């Protein structure tokens, strides 16, 4: 019916007549509504009693019917309504047709104040949450250490494969790239003083102490921390966590602990791997920019670096791993209801994990400086 004759062509509306009687011909609908409204705007203001002839309308849809009902409310008489249009008019005319309620607008400065307050409140609750979760994780971790039989080797080894072995290529690439960056910068800066040979020790020390572990931790936070949140979050959204609880199984032991232990095992190993790759990258730089052979390069590295540099870098890895896993799992368990919240929590988890990694790295730097390592 509506528009059957105007399948492919755009629907047309013709408005004819003069004085207090107008007639519509064609299709009155979504596409012709603006035209009809403009034509009638002028006409309606001029006269008191008006008749609109709609007997020649070939098509009428809901916006068109809404328009006619509005006219009827304003005392325009509709003449010659076809029976098939009458049902539609009756249906639309029977609706209350209330305008959409607009949400109350709040002044900009008040919005700012509200946001500030909300932000502070969120931060407070966030900090409490992290503290609680860290405490809980530590207690669960301690319990697991005292009762190793309660651990789940299968899921831990799966986590190690997922977070460790699959991350090897990208970690290697990042480590090599970062030492190339440091190498080029230091060669350029040290050359005027004739000290470009120190580039080797600079790369070795910075990779072993800071860059290796930092780059690896950031990579893992983006890669595995987000995966933890998404995995646990989807389980939460699909009520799988509730199912575990109802079976008397502790989601914390089943989901959080294997991830945490897995990551605490893998991150130091990954860091060690990144250190090796970083030194290799340094050797490459030495070879290409300074024309120093690999054996000479290794000799220099041994002179420049002590075992404590290596240890300082490596000791940070499990701490970072603990925080990455904690934040990832915590945000996963904080997912509420919809899938939308999984995305939001994942973003938060990654941002927070990287933030914590860098904060703790700074604290470690200060600490090691004081201790004199």
């Amino acid at each position, binding site marked *: 019916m*509506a528009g059957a004759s105007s*399948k492919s062509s755009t629907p047309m509306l013709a408005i004819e007549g003069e004085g207090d009687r107008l007639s519509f011909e064609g299709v009155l609908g*979504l596409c012709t509504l603006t035209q009809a409204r403009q034509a009638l705007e002028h006409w309606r203001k001029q006269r008191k009693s008006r008749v609109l002839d709609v007997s020649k309308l070939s098509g009428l*849809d809901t*916006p068109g019917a809404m328009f006619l009902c509005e006219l009827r409310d304003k005392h325009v008489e509709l003449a010659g309504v076809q029976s098939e249009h009458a049902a*539609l008019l009756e*249906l*639309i005319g029977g609706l209350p*047709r209330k*305008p959409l309620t607009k949400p109350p607008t709040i002044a900009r400065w008040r919005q700012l104040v509200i946001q500030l307050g909300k932000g502070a409140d969120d931060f407070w609750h966030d900090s409490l949450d992290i503290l609680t979760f860290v405490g809980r994780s530590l207690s669960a971790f301690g319990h697991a250490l005292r009762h190793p039989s309660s651990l789940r080797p299968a899921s831990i080894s799966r986590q190690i494969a997922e977070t460790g072995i699959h991350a090897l290529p990208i970690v290697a690439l990042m480590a090599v790239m970062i030492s190339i960056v440091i190498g080029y910068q230091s060669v350029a800066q040290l050359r005027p003083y004739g000290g470009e040979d120190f580039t080797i020790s600079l790369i070795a020390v910075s990779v072993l102490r800071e860059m290796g572990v930092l780059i690896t931790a950031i990579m893992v936070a983006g890669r595995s921390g987000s995966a933890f949140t998404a995995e646990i979050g989807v389980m939460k959204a699909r009520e799988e966590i509730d199912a575990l609880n109802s079976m008397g199984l502790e989601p914390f032991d089943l989901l959080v602990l294997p991830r945490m232990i897995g990551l605490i095992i893998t991150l130091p190993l990954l860091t060690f791997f990144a250190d090796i790759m970083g030194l290799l990258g340094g050797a490459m730089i030495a070879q290409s920019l300074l024309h120093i052979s690999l054996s000479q390069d290794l000799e220099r590295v041994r002179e420049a670096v002590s075992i404590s540099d290596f240890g300082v870098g490596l000791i940070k890895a499990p701490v970072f791993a603990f925080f990455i896993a904690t934040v990832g799992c915590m945000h996963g368990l904080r997912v509420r209801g919809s899938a939308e919240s999984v995305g939001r929590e994942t973003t938060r988890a990654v941002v927070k994990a990287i933030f914590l990694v860098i904060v703790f790295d700074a604290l470690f730097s200060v600490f090691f400086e004081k201790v004199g390592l």
Partner: protein
Amino acid sequence: MSAAARSQHAEPILSARGIVNCFGKQRVHDKVDLDVEAGEVLGIAGGSGSGKSVLLKTLIGLHRPDSGKVLIEGKPIEAISADEKAALIGVLFQQGALFSSLSVAQNVMLPMREYTDLPVSEQEKIAAVKIELTGLSADSAMKFPAQLSGGMVKRAALARALALDPRMLFLDEPTSDLDPLTAGGIDELIMQLNRGLGLTVVIVTHDLTTLLTVCDRVAVLVEGKITVGTVDQLARSHDPWIREFLHGPRAQGAMNARKSNHGIR
């Protein structure tokens, strides 16, 4: 209604010919033919996993069948442009598929914003009418999908499906997950839209009450084949699944509902 009378001379608004869909080795649809007449309410029924939803997706062109074709008004569905299709077909997805970052009113206005150049005030008016048409109050228009109950989600999604006044409405399980009273309200709404707006409606459902009270004809998918007919015709079928379906204990209540409902009609 006059759908039966009209069907005798008019050509079907949608016809599917020789639809074959396979998933792995399983042949879900085995040369399915289906005609939808303009102005009718067609129900598609079948057991879980019988390929109802896939058939619906094939009919609206979201799923490309392994062989066979779908014609809308004689035109192959792949040849219909996006804006033509939007004006032709409205779809209510099983979970509503409302955009969660938009309010109900914004959800309804989205297709209008994309496909028409109506001023925003006009779009808002139309959206308000559509939302009221589906039985929601004007206050719920500003709510977000997460704040709505199951029945309200279906109504809001229906309002969005109706945004461009499509001529065909496809409903995927419109009454699933709803309590019987709310489901009854949705059934009533479908009939009202079919009569008032002259919409052609295709419903995928295994809700017997919907099938028996709302649908003019029912297509039953059993083992990849389709059987189409009115409920009375199907009730005389010899297929064991259809017999069980229409004569089982759950069907009796629905049959009673149908009798009382047809009395009103």
